[in-house]
């Protein structure tokens, strides 16, 4: 994020101790002309994509998203690589992997935005799309990105294998629970996973899982605050809006199942991608 080092520290401090300050928008910026609103929307989008890029680059350097062939690099990439003095194929692989690592957080953000705004809209007290956009940009940019980072850490760290395996098992069980409820005869590529016990979890693993749960709570709370402050909703209406977001993973899996059944496949492709990489 742009700003002085002190403002970054203050931002980090508020993210932990004052989420309301992070997600609350300035109403006078939203009660402006259409042109001004569009400018504000562009500013929020640029801020979001910058955060997304900052999140994805370290993942790419860590080796995520680099599997599979990427084909020949386009001419533009070859040109840039020759100017920068880097290998065109390596540069193209890096760009593709970065885009892939951005994709899941981006999809999760879009799903959050749609479900949050639908939830707010259904309360019939919505103050506008811009307010929802502000809420989701900041809550996903910080707290959802932190969740993804913890999941990535749990999935890749060799020292906390039990916690990582347990997390994968929870995700697989979640998907199979919906498959069973829907009565669909579908399987994931790895099949059903044996239950994983946390009995052998290390302190680091327990700490990481607790931090992941806390970030999940912060994420929900930041959306709740966004509904209350930016849309001026009451407590119940705000909880309903957040409830829609909580239900979104279920909707995502149901949609994946429906798509798979309609296509005649036996493997829900979208849902299986939830398990193969961090969320």
């Amino acid at each position, binding site marked *: 994020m742009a700003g002085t080092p002190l403002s970054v520290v203050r931002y980090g401090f508020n993210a*932990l*101790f*004052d989420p309301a300050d992070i997600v609350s928008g*300035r*109403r*006078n*910026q939203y009660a402006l002309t259409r042109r001004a609103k569009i400018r504000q929307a562009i500013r929020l989008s640029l801020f979001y994509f910058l955060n997304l890029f900052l999140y994805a680059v370290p993942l790419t350097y860590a080796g995520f998203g680099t599997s599979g062939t990427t084909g020949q690099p386009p001419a533009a990439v070859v040109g840039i690589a020759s100017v920068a003095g880097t290998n065109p194929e390596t540069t193209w692989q890096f760009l593709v992997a970065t885009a892939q690592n951005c994709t899941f957080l981006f999809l999760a953000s879009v799903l959050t935005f749609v479900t949050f705004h639908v939830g707010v809209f259904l309360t019939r007290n919505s103050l506008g799309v811009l307010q929802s956009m502000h809420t989701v940009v900041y809550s996903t940019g910080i707290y959802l990105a932190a969740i993804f980072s913890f999941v990535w850490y749990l999935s890749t760290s060799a020292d906390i294998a039990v916690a990582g395996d347990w997390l994968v098992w929870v995700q697989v069980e979640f998907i199979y629970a919906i498959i069973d409820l829907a009565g669909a005869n579908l399987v994931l590529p790895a099949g059903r996973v044996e239950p994983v*016990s*946390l*009995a052998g*979890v290390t302190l680091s693993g*327990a*700490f990481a*899982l*607790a*931090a992941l*749960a*806390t970030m999940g*709570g912060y994420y929900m709370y930041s959306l709740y605050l966004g509904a209350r402050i930016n849309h001026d909703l009451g407590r119940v209406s705000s909880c309903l809006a957040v409830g829609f977001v909580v239900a979104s993973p279920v909707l995502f899996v149901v949609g994946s199942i429906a798509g798979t059944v309609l296509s005649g496949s036996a493997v829900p492709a979208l849902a299986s991608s939830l398990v193969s990489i961090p969320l």
Partner: protein
Amino acid sequence: MTNSQQPTETDASATDSLDPDSAPPDDPTLGDGSRATSSEQSDEEVRYRARPTIRPQLAWSALTVIVGGAIAGALFANVLGLEDRQLSVIGGMAVVFVVVAILGRLVVQMYVLRRTSYTITSSAVRYEFSLWFRTRSREVPRSKIRACQHERDRVQKVFGVGTVTVLTGGTNASLGYVEFSNVPNSEAVRDVIREQIP
């Protein structure tokens, strides 16, 4: 902010600022027409001056520790009887993280409140906050006051304090407002401010 339509916010030097230590702790000074100190304008009449109390924050801290500690303790002891005991322990750790975050926020609030003072004069409503060697003040001229809002949660009610907000044209901080948090005798303060509304 220097726009005449907005309340002014200034970084006063320590020598120019109102010395918060001169205000009586927690007791309001009302309507005796005392003259302003030399650091204020010569034609200003001070109608109210006080510092906020931190008792509600102390109460919330105690409540957080008691309730959070009880929940965390129950989870560490696996009171729910979960088959996978470690899951309960992890839940307890998550509760501890949340309790620490809440306590951190309350400690910061108390720190800020201890360094804040509120003043109502015949021409303006002002709060000042001192941190290290700088004093920051936010002032609303009397002519810009449009409304006054009084709020009190359950804990503030127990301690007889409240939050009084002076509004200049909106309810959002960026539009300009001054808030007196945890102010003793808040209803009387609200009445004094109401008298200021043109």
